């Protein structure tokens, strides 16, 4: 009985901590403006949509890996999937929760776009380094 109670409480607390952690990671990228090259590469306008996340993620995967952002991208990817399920489940019954989930998904898309921007810069630096070492 006690073990079951501990399991349920731990699971609820784990989900809460995970959501807060992902939101703290997203908060770090929220103020970052997207560059024109990212908008051009992904074909997006002034603001990113909730559905753009997968597209940004695919583009991120095309760039050379930067170990510094790998863990953050994975955590946010898991958070995005959870939000996707939540938005689907609550659309009919709880539209306010679905709207909140969609807004959060938009934050995830912005995070992925910022990560893509960083990776493009990283790739360019790598290319410049290789070109200068060949000369």
């Amino acid at each position: 009985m006690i073990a079951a109670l501990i399991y349920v409480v731990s699971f609820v607390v784990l989900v809460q901590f995970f959501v807060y952690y992902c939101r703290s990671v997203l908060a770090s990228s929220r103020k970052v403006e997207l560059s024109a090259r990212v908008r051009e590469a992904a074909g997006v306008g002034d603001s990113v949509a909730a559905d753009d996340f997968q597209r940004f993620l695919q583009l991120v995967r095309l760039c050379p890996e930067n170990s510094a952002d790998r863990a953050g991208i994975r955590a946010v990817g898991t958070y995005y999937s959870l939000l996707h399920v939540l938005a689907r489940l609550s659309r009919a019954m709880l539209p306010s929760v679905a709207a909140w989930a969609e807004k959060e998904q938009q934050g995830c898309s912005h995070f992925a776009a910022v990560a893509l921007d960083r990776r493009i810069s990283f790739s360019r630096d790598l290319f410049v380094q290789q070109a200068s070492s060949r000369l």
Partner: protein
Amino acid sequence: MLGPVDYALWIAGFVFEAAAVLSIFYRKAFGRYYSVCLYMACKFFVQGAQYICFLKFGFRSAQYFYLYYYSDSLLTILLFFVVMHLYLLVFAEMDTDRHIRAGAVLLLFLTAAFSYLVVRRYRTHLTEHFVVELGQGLYFVGTVLTYILWGAMITLRERRARLVQVVLALGIYYSATAGAYALQDLFPGRQMPVFAWAPPAANVWLSLAWTLAFLRIREEASVMVPTLAVKAQ
């Protein structure tokens, strides 16, 4: 018998623990986060000792069993001191040092009493069930303490981004491990991989998250904690 996943988790834990210690020194954060650094260093050396014991006596030996679970319990108690130190950091400007220290002594006393009661109950047969019950209780206390700390941070509108991530990573670690131990207690005798992999995976998570928190977030970086509150619109 250990499989490739067990070895991978072991090696990753070992590497990231060292990385966490090095990143604290690299970012010159030892003065403020000395308890985190000491805990990670102890964890690193304990894992080294466990590996030597594993090579010498084998995975199924009693020596390895006792070393693993007792060192784990001691490290959990050491992690309580990290939590208390994080409380001190959060309440640093409120002149509550004396109360927090008194709380830490009380917590140590309660933990000792709880451990004594569990050991007394199983004194004739210190089996796997005993260590699972002890671990479950200790990690659950850690979960509750971290949850209270996080609640206090939200109330006080804590803005230090690094501290926020350190506490949240610790909360994930404690709750995941407590849940895994509770699941093991619910289904005794079942050899499910999740029981064996969850604690080392949570350990890899904690050391990796702390490494990233020290490497990527500057001490002066701030984050708006109220914006983290989950609000349905």
